[in-house]
């Protein structure tokens, strides 16, 4: 599996291929904890937030919310403790970048969490990691212990008067706990149901206290932003989304892996066909899901020869989204009906059950897809499926409902033939209702 940068100097992935990259020693001898030092000795918390704002860093967890802005929502004067929580729940199908960032360079995450904590006046930070990633928790725990021994975590960090704890916390198998408020419920020892917003976590999050939840990759970008300055970081990417982005690539490519690209990389075709080594076994590209399973599926025809820019705006223009940056590449052998069925089964399994449309809607959709797969499809099913998706989308309590609807809607729209085949097993010739 490939892991490295294309089209730019590796930033986030600078150390990943070094031997012993997870150790404090290697981290330090490659510029590690310099940013923390800079922050502690020469920057005020407001300076840090200002720098992050300048960097145009957008959250890498999926929603792409500007990180500096999110940090500035935390009330400075609140008498309550404040928390920084790292979202390492990475459960979005097709996404595995956080895993390698943590496995190969845990100190970068610790440093990012500490800088965030400093900026927000927090003294306790948690790294909520999905339970299946137990080995990463062990790596993180070792790294935290090392950092603590070196005076980088705990009381009076590096002799400053800033104190901060970093703790790991394990999830136990629930995709919804990646949603930030569900994550907070889970961290409080409750069922992982999302919470009502407002109040947003920045105002009332963990234990009712101001809390910032950021994705691993968002936090690991922070040390570099501090070191090179927000402006320089922004310039690596585009005006609206600064810096580099780490993409996970899986599926029918010759070289799956974790790729760091500058934001705004041109273009997607080159990326898949050249950087990722093209499609396996000389087959043809059929479709790509570019942002983890929750985004619109793109047919090859929307990619090949279309100069799709790989950043937030570029992908929206091309009819999809950056999401969590999980590329799932599918060749011509894949039946999009089957792949869609696979995803809706995922969403049904992971629906938390809180709200009506998502709980009942995904259950119903799975039943329809299974029936169709048994060969009992009916022409009117396509309309029914689309209508059910419409009834879920925008009505659910949290975005998981939308995330379940989007892949289906786009699949039926973009690959009508794959559905027709299943829906009209007998009357092949009739025009589709889609």
């Amino acid at each position, binding site marked *: 599996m490939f892991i490295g940068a294309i089209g730019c100097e590796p930033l986030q992935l600078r150390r990943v291929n070094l031997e012993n990259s997870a150790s404090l020693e290697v981290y330090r001898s490659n510029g590690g904890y310099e940013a923390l030092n800079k922050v502690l000795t020469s920057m005020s918390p407001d300076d840090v937030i200002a720098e992050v704002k300048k960097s145009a860093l957008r959250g890498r967890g999926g929603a792409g919310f500007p990180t500096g802005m999110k940090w500035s929502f935390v009330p400075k004067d609140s008498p309550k403790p404040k928390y920084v929580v790292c979202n390492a729940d990475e459960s979005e199908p097709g996404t595995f970048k956080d895993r390698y960032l943590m496995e190969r360079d845990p100190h970068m995450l610790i440093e990012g969490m500490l800088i965030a904590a400093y900026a927000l006046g927090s003294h306790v930070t948690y790294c909520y990691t999905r339970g299946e990633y137990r080995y990463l928790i062990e790596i993180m725990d070792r790294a935290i212990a090392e950092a603590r021994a070196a005076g980088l975590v705990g009381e009076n960090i590096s002799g400053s008067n800033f104190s901060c704890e970093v703790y790991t916390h394990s999830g136990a198998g629930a995709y919804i706990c990646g949603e930030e408020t569900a994550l907070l419920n889970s961290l409080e020892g409750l069922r992982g149901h999302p919470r009502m917003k407002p109040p947003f976590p920045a105002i009332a999050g963990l234990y009712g206290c101001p809390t910032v939840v950021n994705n691993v990759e968002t936090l690991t970008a922070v040390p570099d932003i501090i070191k090179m300055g927000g402006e320089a970081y922004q310039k690596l990417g585009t005006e609206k989304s600064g810096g580099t982005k780490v993409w996970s690539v899986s599926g*029918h490519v010759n070289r*799956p892996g974790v790729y760091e690209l500058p934001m705004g990389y041109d273009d997607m075709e080159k990326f898949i066909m050249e950087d990722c080594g093209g499609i396996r076994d000389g087959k043809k590209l059929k479709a790509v899901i570019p942002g983890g399973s929750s985004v619109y599926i793109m047919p090859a025809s929307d990619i090949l020869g279309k100069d799709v820019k790989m950043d937030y705006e570029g992908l929206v223009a091309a009819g999809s989204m950056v999401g969590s940056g999980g590329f799932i590449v599918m060749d011509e052998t894949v039946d999009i009906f089957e792949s869609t069925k696979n995803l809706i089964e995922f969403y049904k399994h*992971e629906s938390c059950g809180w709200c009506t449309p998502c709980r009942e809607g995904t259950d119903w959709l799975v039943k329809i897809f299974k029936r169709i797969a048994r060969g009992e499809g009916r022409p009117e099913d396509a309309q029914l499926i689309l209508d059910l998706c419409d009834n879920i989308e925008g009505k659910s309590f949290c975005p998981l409902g939308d995330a379940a609807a989007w892949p289906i809607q786009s699949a039926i729209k973009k690959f009508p033939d794959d559905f027709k085949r299943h829906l009209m097993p007998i009357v092949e010739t009739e025009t589709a209702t889609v």
Partner: protein
Amino acid sequence: MSQQFTPNNPLPQEAKVPAEMAVFSPQVEAEIDGHLAKYPPDRKRSAILPLMFIVQRERGGYLDPPGVAYLADRLGVRITDIWEVATFYSMINTEPVGKYHLQICKTLSCKILGANKVTAQCMERLGIKPGETTADGLFSISEVECLGSCGTAPMMQIGFDYYENLTTEKVDEIIEKCRSGQLGNGVR
């Protein structure tokens, strides 16, 4: 908001508490203390998932009634609170599972790269279907959702250990090694 909620303090147990309560060694107790120390003292409940993993490791792979009673007591919550949380999370077992729990990823990236073959091979070698346990209690198979190994698909997890880039031959080899005790069951 006009409503204001304070956490409900634990009341005396109301559901039937199992008669027996699990007892753990000082080492395990120390491990548990280590987890509890991460959270504010009045928020012990936060440690519920980490503690569940420990209890299920120590109690034969699942939360048996004495283990549940222990958790409720240790965290100062009601027995039903343990139930509501345990049944929400797919990694917490409320029923016994085999010593080697083969969890095969079935989500899209693994699926298009041959997850079905992996499952079929396991089923054939072990003579059980997903959701079942072999009669000797050694193996269980489950089909699970994406485990973040899409780049190294297909894959499965045994306990907490990842086995990636699987082929049918590799599956055979792994199963053989489990049988002969050469592989740990990945439960930590």
